[in-house]
Structures are given as structure tokens and as C-alpha cells.
């Protein structure tokens, strides 16, 4: 027998909330995750208060300096109308991030409803919802989104709905699996043996534990949603071409990729940075929730 018990007697318990705790907490976060947090903070600032980051008005045209290469005064260069591309990217953050947040949010909420029905609703509910998920899963996400846009017409809300519908089955399936696993977990049995009512067991144990991975998945999903949504804009079937989101900038920049590469590279780069940042944070959250990262002195 190799009982893999690790002695934690060396660890000094830190009171939650103390200065020392926070210091240790900060130390337990790797540098890469810190960078990601800083970047995401910048994105949040750009979304909430774009004026802070914009070096000039994103709409200010200067037709005499159109298609200027990146420089100190124009970090991402200027576009066809001499507008500062950096400011335009900043201005587009709000809508893009909202698409990501809302689409993923709707997907997660729908997934929770479906997942709960399947995971806890009994054999029939499980069978029906699981089949439904399998069916939804069989529709490739972008194709389903395009079909929805075909039928309901292109608009920002349809796009968000399409991305949400496309991504929800993935979350729901995961949540269902999680619920089923948690339902049979030892601590649920232990709680039953104590004599707690089932409702309390669901709310205290099953749901919180099953939902945990969704927190990090939600984070990971935001990046993918932004990518899908910008893909729809790229196909020209997303929101109106003059809306300020990144996908539209990419779509507009494509014509200029030879003449003014920065118009294509900059918004794409920003999407990648956002997606990677939230992925890094999401994975770190995953590690934390699964207990792979601990806050301790030493």
C-alpha cells in the first residue's frame, strides 16, 4: 500500500483576509496569469470607459493621413479615413466583449436549465434532454448560427442568440455529466445518510459542486464566443457592417491587408490576446477549483 497521504503539518494556516493571506494569495498566482489579469483589466476598462484608453476620438476622420502605418502617435496605424485604429479597436471592445459575455451567459443559463433537467430530473427527462443535446450537438455551431441568421435575419441580437444556441449544448452536456457524477459522489451519500432533505442536498452539495467547472468554462467560452461572433461578422452576416465590433473591423480590414496590413492584424491580434488571456485565467481558475493551487505560506 502506498497511501498517498501528504503531511501538511509544515503548512502554516493563514487567516483568510489578513494581509499575509493576500500576500500569499498573490504569490500563488503565476506570472502568466497575472499578465492575463492585467490584460483583461485593460479590456474591461476599454469596454466600460473607452475614453480612458482612446488616444483620440475613434470617429475623428483625418482624410489627409489615411492608411498611415503604425507609429507612436497611432499605435495601430490609421484606417482608410485617417481614423486612429487603436482608438477604434478600443471603441469596439464594448460591443465585442458584450457579445462574448452575453452569448456565453445565455448559453450557460440555458445549459444549467437543460443540465439540471437531465441530471436530476429522472430517467425520462434525462433521456429526452440528452437526445436533444445530441441533436443540437450534431449541428456545427457556425452552420447553425448561419441558419438562424438566415431565418431570423441578421442583427446583433440574433447573432448573440445564434452563438448562444450554438455553444449551449456543450455546456449542458458537461453540466449533465458533472451532475450525474456529483449525484453519486460519496459526500452526497453521506449527506443522505445524515438525513438531510433532498432539496437541501441539491442546493448545498450537488448544484454547487456540479456548477463549479462552469465558472472556468464560462471564462474559456467567452474567448470562443468572441471568435465565433467575429467570424459571423467576417462573413458579412453578423451585425451591421458599420457597427464598431472587432469582427467588423476585421471584415473591413481584409481589403487592405496588402496595402495596410495593420488594419487586419490589429483587431485580430486583440481578439487573440483577449481569447488567450481569458483562457489562461479560466485554466487557472480550473486549477484552483480542483485544488491544484493552494494558498499557503512557504
Amino acid at each position, binding site marked *: *500500500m502506498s497511501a498517498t497521504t501528504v503531511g501538511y503539518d509544515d503548512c502554516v494556516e493563514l487567516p483568510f483576509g489578513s494581509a499575509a493571506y493576500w500576500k500569499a494569495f498573490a504569490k500563488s498566482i503565476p506570472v502568466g496569469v497575472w499578465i492575463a489579469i492585467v490584460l483583461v483589466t485593460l479590456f474591461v476598462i476599454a469596454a466600460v470607459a473607452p475614453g480612458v484608453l482612446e488616444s483620440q476620438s475613434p470617429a475623428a476622420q483625418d482624410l489627409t493621413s489615411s492608411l498611415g502605418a503604425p507609429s507612436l502617435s497611432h499605435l495601430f496605424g490609421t484606417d482608410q479615413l485617417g481614423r486612429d485604429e487603436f482608438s477604434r479597436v478600443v471603441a469596439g471592445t464594448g460591443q465585442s466583449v458584450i457579445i462574448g459575455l452575453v452569448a456565453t451567459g445565455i448559453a450557460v443559463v440555458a445549459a444549467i436549465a437543460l443540465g439540471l433537467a437531465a441530471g436530476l430530473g429522472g430517467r425520462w427527462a434525462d433521456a429526452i434532454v440528452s437526445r436533444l443535446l445530441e441533436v443540437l450537438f450534431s449541428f456545427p455551431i457556425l452552420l447553425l448560427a448561419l441558419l438562424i441568421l438566415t431565418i431570423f435575419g441578421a442583427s446583433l441580437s440574433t447573432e448573440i442568440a445564434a452563438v448562444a444556441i450554438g455553444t449551449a449544448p456543450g455546456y449542458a452536456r458537461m453540466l449533465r455529466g458533472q451532475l450525474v457524477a456529483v449525484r453519486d459522489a460519496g459526500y452526497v451519500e453521506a449527506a443522505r445518510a*445524515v438525513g438531510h*432533505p433532498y432539496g437541501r442536498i441539491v442546493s448545498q452539495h450537488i448544484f454547487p459542486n456540479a456548477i463549479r467547472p462552469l465558472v472556468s468554462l464560462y471564462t474559456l467560452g467567452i474567448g470562443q464566443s468572441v471568435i465565433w461572433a467575429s467570424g459571423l461578422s467576417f462573413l458579412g452576416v453578423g451585425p451591421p457592417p458599420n457597427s464598431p465590433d472587432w469582427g467588423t473591423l476585421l471584415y473591413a480590414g481584409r481589403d487592405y491587408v496588402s496595402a495596410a496590413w495593420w488594419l487586419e492584424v490589429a483587431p485580430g491580434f486583440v481578439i487573440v490576446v483577449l481569447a488567450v488571456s481569458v483562457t489562461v485565467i479560466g485554466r487557472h481558475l480550473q486549477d484552483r477549483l480542483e*485544488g491544484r493551487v493552494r494558498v499557503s505560506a512557504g
Partner: protein
Amino acid sequence: MSTLNTTAGSPVAGSVSGAPLVRVDGLRVSFGKSVEDNPVVRGVSFTLEPGRTLAIVGESGSGKSVTARTLLGLTGRNAKIATDRFEIHGVDVSGYGDAQWRKLRGRDIGLVTQDALVSLDQLRQVRQDVGEGPKIHKTLKRKQELFARVVELLDQVGVPDPAVKARQLPHELSGGQRQRALIAAALALDPGILIADEPTTALDATVQAQVLDLLDATRQRGKALIIISHDLAVVSRLADELIVMRRGEVVERGDAAEILSAPKHEYTQKLLDAVPSGHSRGQRLSPSETASQATVSDLKVVRAHHAKPLAGGNLLEAAGLVKSFTGPDRVARRAVDNVSFQLKPRETLGIVGESGSGKSTVAKLVLGLEEPDEGHVRLAGEPWSGIKEKQRRDRRPDLSIIYQDPLSSFDPRWSVERVVQDTVARDISDTVGQKGRVGELLDLVSLPRGLRGRRPLELSGGQRQRVAIARAVASSPRVIVCDEPVSALDVSIQAQVLDLLGDLRDELDVSYVFISHDLGVVHHVSDRVLVLHNGRVVEEGGSDEVLHNPREEYTQKLVSAVPRLRISGRAQQVA
């Protein structure tokens, strides 16, 4: 079992004849920055001669497995190793690189690890793993030759139907067959040295005995054997020499028989004392400093609130329990078949059985977590099975459980305090009162106060089991079902937990249904014993009666298979 043929594999190039097979002086191993940085092995020395068996004994974290692996150059990439002298076949191997070690592995030294299910590649046929050594070392190139050798090896280690089994997957073999196959794989190139690292852990007692016989036969044919174990009984059967390790250090070494009969070091003594058996009944297994410090009287008061007076003589009564499960092949199997027993107040009923005997299912039926197909359970004279969960809920505090794996029975998000509080909350509504009671309970099981804010994952195995016990007694139950509560623990921790359970029985006036595969443990704790086999009760009676003088053949086999400490003059027997 046919004799193993010794078509000797070639020894190390340049080996010095007459030199010991292995000679290690001052072995130090560390996984830190340097060999001095928090070493896990701190100066181990031994020599190994042909036909001799060296046993290395210790609890987890003693460094015994690391020591064994160092002999194969498998300590790990980031291990720092230093020796004063390190020779195999008289050749200095201290500076060997991986390529040089590879030539030794399998050919000169074979390794048998524990838990054959995961030590064999589950995605490959048994023959592929068994024949891997000859294939890698290119001693047998033709497919037919290789297969013939595999069949021969499997036959030699006593795997029935070897030609068929060779083509099966590990999970299609029984546990014993797998362990034999693993030994066959280690013997494939006929190495002079065989290292067996916990070779019988996780095996049922009867199978364990067979595997030990097999290893013994190997040794008798001139192999040198190094056996690593936490179990002194296992070791006592085979070892010529014994090394006892603790925290990387050798605390005692010498002739096995001498050490076991007259241990010089107190740690060795403690280990020997900690082994539970029929003889240890009523005695403490661990030094007494871990005894509970709580004032138990408070706890008894709580009990009075909800315990109904006992009607009739039996606290718990199971009659004709039957439970079937449908397997993936849609065939229903009876996991429990006509099991009946009674439990009287302050009594401990031991339920013994090997894996698959249905003992855990009995636990679930007793707890009312599963409904029996037939038969019934009564608790304190009132029906416990066949009623609605709602009706059971109020009476659940009378019954609680301690699991083998406490970790999975704790919500991973919750602190130790909250885990216990969750149970307390049934009876006490105000938070201050709950916290106070939790404190008392954790004091009762002697869990250090500093650990109470931690999550279960951050505790050691013994600490976790203490939390589980605190939770189990929190509702002041009349009956606690203990399902293999000490199987995952080191022997000294096991001793502490068993002592704690014993103390609580006396102090809290509870009865136990104690389920275990370990006859020694069951004998130590139980007043009466129930022997289960394939879901049926084979034998029942007072524990001394059943375990000393078993009437049924199965029980006899079970009892005789238990490894005993073979100590001259101290003639200890487990059962």
C-alpha cells in the same frame, strides 16, 4: 506449479564473480535542489547475496520504495542521488546513465509492483507486457518463440490456461492472475535479482498467500529477492534480512527473525504492537497520548433529545436480506443473498469477506441507502426498510457511517468545520451552538485546532478519518457502520483510529457494524463475526470461536491464508 528454469540471463558485462549481487553504501536520495535538500532517503546501506531475501519495511513516506527504485535507476529524472558505494554484480553503477541502466533492467533486475491492474498496460494483451523484456532485449526475435516463452512463463507462475490468458486483456484476468502475470513479466529474462514492491497489497488474503508462495519458490531457485512492504506479517514469511525504515532513515536492521522476536528500536516495537489481532483485543494498539480529551458527558445529553427508548433487545436487526444488481450484460446477480444478523446495544459486529463478497452492499442496506429486494431491516425495533425516506429521515441520527475513503465523502469545497457543522445543524439551530458543538467533536477525535479551517484535501489520511469519525458521532448515533475504515491507513495510524473507535464505544455508548477484509482488524474490534462469501453468510458466531476454530471450509481457508508474524518465542497469531 512447475519449476522455474534458470536459463541464466547474462550478468552485467565485466561482472565480478563472487561479489554480492548488490552492494549499496550510504544511499541518499533527494528530490530537492541538492542531495542534502530535504532528502527522502538518508543513508541506506545493504548487500544482497544470491538466494537471500532482503525485506525493507516502513510506513508511507519512509523512503522504502524510492530505495527500491534506485536499484533500477528509476528514481526519477529530478532525483539527486549520492552513494558511497553502489555496485551491482560488483560493477560500479553510480555513474550510470539511462542507456546503461536500460541494459540492466529486466535482464539483471526484475521489478514487481503492486496493483497489477494498473501495472499492466490495460490496452494491450497480457502477452505483450509479459514478453516485453525479451522483445526489448532482443533475446527472442521470432514471434512464435516469443509467444511460446510467454505461455511457458505464465504456466510457471501458475496462471491457468496460459495460452488463452496470454491473449486476453489484463482486466479479463482475476486479481491474482494479474499479479502472477506481472511476476512472469519480471522473470521473463530470468534476472538474478527480483524486487517486489508491495507485491500483495490490494489482494485478498487467500490470493495474497498464493503470491507469497510463488515469490518464495522463486527465491528458493537462487534468485535474490528484495521485498518492500508496510506489512510486517507479509515480510516475516519471506525475509532473511530486514531493514526497518522511517522518514528516510534505517532505524533497525539485521536478521529478520531476530528483529521480529526482539525488536531493539522502539519504532519497530511500536509497529509490532500496532498490528491488531485477536490477542490485542481490549488492549490499546497505540501509545496512549492520543486518547480523547473531550468531556463526553455533554455529548450524551444531546443523545437523550432524540433517541427513542429501545423496544426489544436488538438495536439493529436484518432478516433475510436479498439484493440483486443488473450488470452491463443485463444479467442480474445477487450481491447479497439471504443475509440475517442482529446487533445488540454496545456490541460490535464484524463482517468479514473478500472483495465481491457483498459486504459493502450490506452496509448500504443497513443504512437505508438501498432498499432490499427481499427481507427487512429493523432499527431499534421499528421497521427501517420498506418505508418512505421521509419517515426514515427523523430517525437517521440513530445511524451513521464511516467510509474507507473519507476524502470522497467530504464535499471538496467545504472546510473541516463546515463538514461537521452540516451534520450538527440537524439538531442545533443557532450558529454559535453549532460551532461550539463542532469544536467539542473535533476535540473528541483529537484533531488539532489549527487544521479546522482546512479543506479535507489538505489533510493527511489519518486526520481525514478523524474528521469522518467526528461527523459520524456528531448526531450521537446508536449504531455506526464502519465500512473498511482503516484499510487505507498505515499501520500506526490504523492503530490510533482503532483505539479511537474503541474509546468512543465505551464513552458514547454506541454499537458498531464493522466491515473489513482484514481478519486481524475484525478480530481486534469485534464481539461477534459474520463471514460473508459471494453474498451469503458462511459462518457466524463469537469472534474467537469463528476465527480460532472455524467450522466452515471457506472460513478455514480464509484464516489460514492470513500471513502471520512468524516469530519464534512470541508465536503470534492473527486470527
